[in-house]
């Protein structure tokens, strides 16, 4: 089922073209929208919400036209912006209840939904304290809660993991995945980190400078994007040869070695190879694959 679709969508500002002939088709589940900063992700969301008119082309969200039926779209869509958008002097509960009412929920329903939603995003007792004292992770959860509180059919999440530490990222991504699967709400999640999205998305759309680079199911992308970078004191060539023998894809880049992750065994193979060859390991890290890596 198609949740949203665009047809040759173009948005020109006086100086830049934010979207250039973009044609995409997004189905149910979790869809990632990947692009560098300024690639046109936020512009696309604004057009889909009916807040900004497109210069050319057309779009449909839930079968509705954002230009003429923006009201109905905004009624069934949730939006989590990238930037800070929370008043520090209110508690999360007060704020989410207010936002639920702004979505048209009656008073009592708004209270119930707010309590439910805050529980689902994982805010406990702290929801009665003013938002100003929250950690970044808690603020991101409140931002997510306001997008979910009116039980939308689709939500647009703009960089939900921004500013979070690795553990916070994992928790947020797990939450986004749950929304798409357990909650049955379709998700369009924007990020500039492909490695992050591929863990939770069913489908990934990559845009660059407003143009569609690629739109594919997640399986087609995964292999290319999981990469580990290894650095050893001496014997880089020996290690490269050993790994190539065992069937890994290895590239020597200056003083470090880049290994494509085929499956979980790759990690074990790499560890065993280093031990067997008696090498001094300097650095071993998982590189967050960026869009550039995939399309190089």
């Amino acid at each position, binding site marked *: 089922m198609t949740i949203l679709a665009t047809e040759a969508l173009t948005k020109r500002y006086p100086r830049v073209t934010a979207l250039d002939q973009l044609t995409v088709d997004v189905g149910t589940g979790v869809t990632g929208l990947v692009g560098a900063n300024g690639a046109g992700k936020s512009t696309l969301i604004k057009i889909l*919400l009916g*807040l*900004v008119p497109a210069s050319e082309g057309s779009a449909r969200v839930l079968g509705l036209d954002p230009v003429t039926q923006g*009201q109905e779209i*905004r*009624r069934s*869509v*949730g*939006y989590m*912006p990238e*930037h*800070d*958008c*929370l*008043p*520090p*002097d209110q508690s999360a509960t*007060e704020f989410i209840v*207010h*936002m639920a*009412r*702004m*979505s*048209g*929920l*009656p*008073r009592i*329903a708004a209270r119930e*939904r707010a309590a*439910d939603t805050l529980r*689902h995003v994982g805010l406990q007792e702290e929801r009665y304290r003013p938002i100003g004292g929250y950690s970044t992770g808690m603020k991101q959860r409140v931002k997510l809660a*306001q997008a979910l509180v*009116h*039980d939308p059919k689709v939500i647009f999440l703009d960089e939900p993991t921004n500013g979070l530490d690795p553990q916070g990222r994992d928790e947020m991504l797990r939450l986004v995945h749950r929304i798409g699967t*357990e*909650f*049955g709400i379709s998700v369009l999640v924007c990020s500039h980190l492909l490695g992050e999205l591929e863990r939770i998305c069913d489908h990934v759309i990559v845009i660059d400078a407003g143009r569609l680079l690629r739109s594919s199911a997640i399986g087609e992308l995964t292999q290319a994007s999981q990469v580990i970078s290894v650095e050893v004191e001496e014997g880089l060539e020996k290690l490269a040869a050993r790994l190539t023998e065992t069937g890994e894809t290895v590239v020597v880049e200056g003083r470090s070695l880049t290994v494509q992750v085929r499956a979980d065994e790759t990690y074990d193979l790499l560890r065993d190879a280093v031990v067997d060859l008696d090498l001094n390991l300097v650095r071993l890290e998982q590189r967050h694959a960026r869009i550039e890596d995939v399309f190089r």
Partner: protein
Amino acid sequence: MSQPTGVIHDIGYRHYDGPRLGRGAAAVALGVHSLRGAFGLGRTFKSKIMPFLLFGTMMLPAVVSITIMALLKQVPMGYTDYAVFMQPVIAIFLAAQSPVLVAPDLRHRVIPLYLSRPITIVDYIGAKLVAMIAALLILMVVPLTVQFAGELLIDLPMPLHTHEYLAALGGSLLNAVLLTAIGLTLASFTPRRGLGVASVIAFYMFTLAASAVLTGVLESEGYRDASSWSILLNPFFLVNAVQSNLFGTQPTEGLPFPSGAGPALILLAVVALAVTGLYARYRKALTA
């Protein structure tokens, strides 16, 4: 043996299938929320101090008036002059509370969250304007009404001032509309609350001084016509002039206001200009 009763199940995510009201209901909810905010209701104790202190001050003349009526059987204070007499208090309320209504949403960038919902920018501005108008009406109409109730209860040896009371209610509405348009617009140009307070109070002080100085100079130079117009620079005198011309009540302090529709047209023009400025301000916030 009794069965355990309080079992908690994790029922997972539940969809909402209750009623979804339209933008009208959302705008009303926002208006009520903002009106409560203007008096600090539902906020911290600190944010209640200022509005309630000012409201208390507004009530003082009414209470004194009732006392005088009861003890001395004398005329109550003029209904139609109440706002002019209490203008510093009303101006401080406007300056202190206008930023409370508009600044936080701008400063903390909450506006995009409203705009991603059925509510539109016009609904948002409308709700804020109506809330501030209502807050000012409460501030001005309650003392008038209390004083009038006092006059009804105390048997004075003179006819009731019903016409003056009703004219003052009309004047209060004009005052509330004019002050709200000016106050919210000035406050919306800065996302910082303190600056908003300062700009509104500075604007009032400026009109107060300009009106007095210009009128004094023009009068001493013999330009009587021009001086009667320059008084109207002060918004409270402008409203008083419109009130006098509209309801035929005595102008405050016997001031020689220009007669006819002139003052009313100025009032309308100022309100239209201010609301246009407010709309332009939020249009900018929308595209940013």
